[in-house]
């Protein structure tokens, strides 16, 4: 389904090169829910952008159903962390969800059906006319999720989508994601820096090292399929897995693609904008 092979990303700057991703290889099967976790600044967002076709890797490739990803593939939807910046402030909730569908030319009836259903499943059935900025952070992220759901993607990429919402909302949204995943049969890659979330949500958790990033461990989460915030989180197995991931992350902090080499510039210290600038210079030079 979704394959990442020997993926490498080097940001080329004026005076220095920053190797964000060293060599990443992993596979996500159709219908899987996989979490990607790693120490902060390990290049998770870079990886996700490469997979989404928003950033060109320096080496290696990403393939979706055997086709190399060179630009944003049509069957893929992305949910970003910054919900406030990923919604159109000048459109109401309904138009926000409907806009990506227009290109698909599905006809008015089908489009309406999809939008209604998507807003229904995320619990926003009565917020169609509201503007995003009239909603709470959690509800705004629900709108972004509804937009992805209505798009009917084969693959859903989520970049730390709940990092900026409060804990209770976060728990609700986690359950929403599991519910949607099971209902829609969509393949989900969920990027997070939260260890609990990484264990609770996925069938598998891929643990990344620090930058330059390699895969530290590909861990199967053998928790029962039926999960809920109360029982799953208090089970012994959850605690074991959580401890294991925690240890791996601690270890990952001192391990990277070249454990021996002097520590490279941490892309952690690059802000989004700067890394984007570097990327722009890279493509232009």
């Amino acid at each position, binding site marked *: 389904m979704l394959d990442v092979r020997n993926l490498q990303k080097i940001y080329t700057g004026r005076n220095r090169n920053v190797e964000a991703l060293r060599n990443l290889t992993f596979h996500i099967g159709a219908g899987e829910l996989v979490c990607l976790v790693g120490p902060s600044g390990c290049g998770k967002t870079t990886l996700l952008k490469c997979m989404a076709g928003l950033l060109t890797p320096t080496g290696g490739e990403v393939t979706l159903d055997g086709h190399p990803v060179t*630009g944003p593939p049509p069957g893929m*939807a*992305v949910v*970003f962390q910054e919900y406030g910046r990923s919604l159109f402030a000048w*459109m109401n909730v309904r138009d926000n969800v409907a806009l990506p569908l227009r290109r698909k030319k599905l006809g008015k009836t089908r489009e309406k059906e999809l939008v209604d259903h998507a807003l229904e499943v995320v619990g926003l059935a009565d917020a169609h006319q509201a503007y995003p*900025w009239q909603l709470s952070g959690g509800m705004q992220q629900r709108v972004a999720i509804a937009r992805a759901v209505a798009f009917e993607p084969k693959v859903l990429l989520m970049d730390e989508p709940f990092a900026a919402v409060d804990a209770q909302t976060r728990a609700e949204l986690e359950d929403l994601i599991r519910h949607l995943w099971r209902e829609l049969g969509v393949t989900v890659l969920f990027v997070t820096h939260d260890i609990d979330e990484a264990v609770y949500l996925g069938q598998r958790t891929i643990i990344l090292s620090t930058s330059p990033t390699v895969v530290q461990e590909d861990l199967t989460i053998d928790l029962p399929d039926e999960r809920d915030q109360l029982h799953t989180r208090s089970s012994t197995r959850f605690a074991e897995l959580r401890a294991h991931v925690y240890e791996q992350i601690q270890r990952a902090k001192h391990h990277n693609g070249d454990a021996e080499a002097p520590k490279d510039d941490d892309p952690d210290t690059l802000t989004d904008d700067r890394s*984007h600038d570097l990327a722009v210079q890279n493509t232009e030079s």
Partner: protein
Amino acid sequence: MIRTTVLTAARRVLLVLGMPAVLFAVWWFATADSTDFYVPPLATILQKFGEVWTVERLLSDVVPSLIRLVAGYLLAVVVGVGLGLVVGMSRVVRDVLEPVLELFRAIPPPVLVPVIMLFAGIGDTMKVIVIVSGCMWPILLNTVEGVRAGDEVLSDTCRSYGITGVARLRHLVLRSASPQIVTGMRQALSIAIILMVISEMFAAINGLGFTIVQFQRSFAIPEMWSGVLLLGLLGFALSLLFRFAENRVLAWYHGLRRAQRNP
């Protein structure tokens, strides 16, 4: 509740009308006994105002002025926004054009009137060109800024959903730059009024600027003052109209700003 609403509304009206009322009163009483030929009493000016600005006069002089103003202004909006989009979206075009644009912008538009007269004659075309050449700059430069300030996350969102080309321009680029574009259009509106009057003062057979100059040359001083007064009222009405349109188009922006201020 109702009482407070009424009081707040009354207070607003008072605040809005207070200062103009005071200024008018000062003007009225300061000039009431004026025998100075050049500073006639306000009462005389107002009386002449009624006599001069009849329906025929409005049709023959104010309407042509307004048509030139509207034509020049709309053309400036189209050119300014269109060019602004091109310049704002391409770094290369920006690097090439920016110094030239800054130079053109620095030339005071009234200076161009004699120049433009040479090749565009003294008809309506000349006046429209003068208005466009002066008021497209704030629109152009603000559009460029607005387009450049576009959000990267939103841009990525559009790309990943395949919103490209015209749809991207319409739903993302233009809308996200619209607060800046409107700012530029507001600045351009006052420039357009000034240039309308100036272009008519140079060479014209009708129009507000022309009429005011005619009165001045024939020493019809109260009539001249009434024309100035009419210009002021016209500018005020246009800015009210502009604010009304802005509140509709940018309702989302004002709402967003309010939401960000009190989260």
